[in-house]
């Protein structure tokens, strides 16, 4: 959905709509572009610096498009006790990314989240919405290679 049609659903000038508005734009477009922030600014009646300042405060908003494969690693206490730190290190090693980054080739994005709810099946990772329970660090190179292969040959 484009920005203008999202804006049409809201009333202009209401500050309390700012966060839901940004959330909806991000859901539709995958990230917050400069254009989006400028448009939202004139719609709400707030300077773009303020909006950028607000958006960077929260973890949810990203300003670059996310990769084709989004890997989320659970780093809740239960997964931590079952060794999620090793999983995080391995993903870092394999993709060359730090959490929150997207690779230059646009294939992988990688995020750390706190608790997905699979506390008994930890460590859990989620790749494009699909859960992988009981992940062992040595399974990851193969998984990442496979995902990369699928994307590159698609």
């Amino acid at each position, binding site marked *: 959905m484009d920005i203008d049609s999202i804006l049409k659903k809201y009333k202009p000038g209401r500050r*309390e709509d700012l*966060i839901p508005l940004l*959330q909806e734009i991000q859901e539709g477009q995958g990230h917050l572009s400069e254009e989006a922030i400028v448009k939202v600014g004139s719609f709400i009646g707030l300077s773009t610096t303020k909006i950028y300042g*607000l958006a960077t*405060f929260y973890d949810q908003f990203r300003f670059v498009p996310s990769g084709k494969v989004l890997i989320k690693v659970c780093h809740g*206490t*239960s997964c931590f006790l079952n060794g999620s730190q090793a999983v995080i290190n391995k993903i870092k090693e394999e993709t060359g990314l730090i959490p929150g980054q997207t690779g230059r080739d646009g294939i992988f994005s990688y995020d750390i989240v706190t608790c997905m*709810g699979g*506390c*008994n099946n930890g460590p859990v990772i989620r790749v494009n919405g699909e859960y992988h329970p009981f992940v062992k660090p040595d399974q990851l190179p193969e998984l990442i290679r496979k995902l990369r292969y699928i994307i590159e040959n698609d």
Partner: protein
Amino acid sequence: MEDLRRFLTEKVLLFESDTLPAETEKVLQQIRREKTNNAVIFISSGTASMIAGSEKTLSAVNTYIADNEPNTQIVMVGCTGPVNYEPFVCIQLPGKNKLYFRNITEEKVEPLLNGVFHSDINKDDLVGQHGGKGFEFWQGIPFIDELPYFAHQKRVVLNNCGCYDPENIEEYIARGGYRAYTKAIRHYTYEEVCNIIEQSGLRGRSGGGYPTGIKWKQALNAGSSSRYLVCNAKESDPGAFTDRVMLESDPHRLIEGIAIAAYAIGASDAIVFFRRGSDHARERLIKAIRSARDFGLIGHNILSSGYNLDIVVRIEPGAFVCGEETALLSTLEGKRGMPKLKPPYPTTNGLFGKPTVINNVETLMNVPLIMQNGPEWFHTLGTEKSPGTKVFAIAGKGRLSGVVEVEMGTAVKTVLEDIADGIKEGKELKAIQLGGASGSFLTAGDLELAVDYDIMNEKGIGMGAGGFIIIDESTCMVDLVRYYMEFMHSESCGKCIPCREGTGRMLEILGNVIKKPLNEDSGTTLERFKGVMQLETIASVMKDTSLCGLGQTAPNPFLSALKNFREEFEEHIFDRKCRANVCRGLRTFSIDVDQCTGCTACASKCPVNAIYGTRLQPFFIVEEKCIGCGICFDICKFNAIKVK
């Protein structure tokens, strides 16, 4: 559909007496699927079940049903509680007790259903049977209420979880739902509802234990034209998932609780502040709100009572600090989620300056039950000062984990040993952590303590919102404290200096404690000691001077770990040893000359080339170079690498 709605509204919700006539009850039984001529299969469909593969189970059941027993009903229910048993499947044959089966993955579906439909039940995956009056019981199969996991629980708030289709409002009404709400808005004044809750002694379940009725009255008595009710469903402690399970399994009770609470304070706007990431729970809640609106239970002039209510769901944009009341309100106003100084409290000066009540999910889930059964009933549960029950999310190293509900006053030991069935793999208990990233640790000596706000507070332990994490001896406490501090540091909002700088400095010092000194001469040792001496001071300054609860409680895990596990910290600092062998920086490895065959496997994999030797001769490790990564330990086939 329209007929059923009219029937439920007129004959059930608006029915004046508490006991319904027999013929209405008969229809309700059918809606509750108690009197059916066909088999019913209940499949759990919460997030935990999905992680365990319940979607595949569902499609396998569908295939089987289409081929063999086409009249069977399939119902998607929420999680019942035990996470280990997912995908949890329950089968009810006409007129017989329900049978519960655990871990029914895709490939187990066909043999299981073949067995059940041909009276040859596989006992391996069977958990037990459950039923009520008028059902025929199964010979030789235990009742699930008698299993230790369920027997020691008192399921009141969770009693609907896993029993009905959460997307079906008719079924919730047939189970007695929304009647307390309609009764409240038609027969009670705002004040009377507040009084009932105050008499019941319900205390906020988010950790502080503030009496809910008093909070509501403060907002009701604050003079204003409009008021707000906010349901704080932003459960973001790592390892806590009680709210999510309740929302997934029983969203309508929460809506009913919100509606009663909003009525009690005279608010016509309610907001659910929802955690990001629980997509499944969010969809369910939004669907439930929509169906309640279609039913006329939310909206304008509800059931001709003249009361208006609107419920909006807002998704938190991702900041731990937003769980704090004033920060939450700032976020809802479209600002940075930073806390403000209290007082004024939100009950008099909250959202947009209006009186606002903020309650958490579990508190609101209790409200319909109290309205339905009366405040005296609530006092029969729990202890005198803390009546009712408490829901915990057990996670970590217990044999069973999941969402459980116990009466207030139950010993922690019961939860650990009877419900969670002790520790996995015969290990020893090290600690139990209550209250998430800002909570404290209980040790083996504290197991007799009762779950009760006052008893816990006396001991300086915050009960928290429901995290119950079991930690065994394979966990290093210093590493765990560092993990919590890392979390707090990244979530500190940065408004006040004690929290912003304090968490960073504490993280740095704890990092030094578990880091290997590469060179003893470079002053790292001195720095470490200097830091360690300051840790306690920093912690106490943060506790005293931080602006909000996040900063004040951030040093809690450290202080409580230091109190209970001081010798472990000292070992790390002085002996440079980690007894759980977790801290990589402190591990040193050596090669046993008798075991080593000289296969070169370790030397070729060592990332820092710290292993030397000649082929087919024993190798050796140069300690100064070793970074303690443990790759050699994992790769050696001859057990020649020893950890020191």
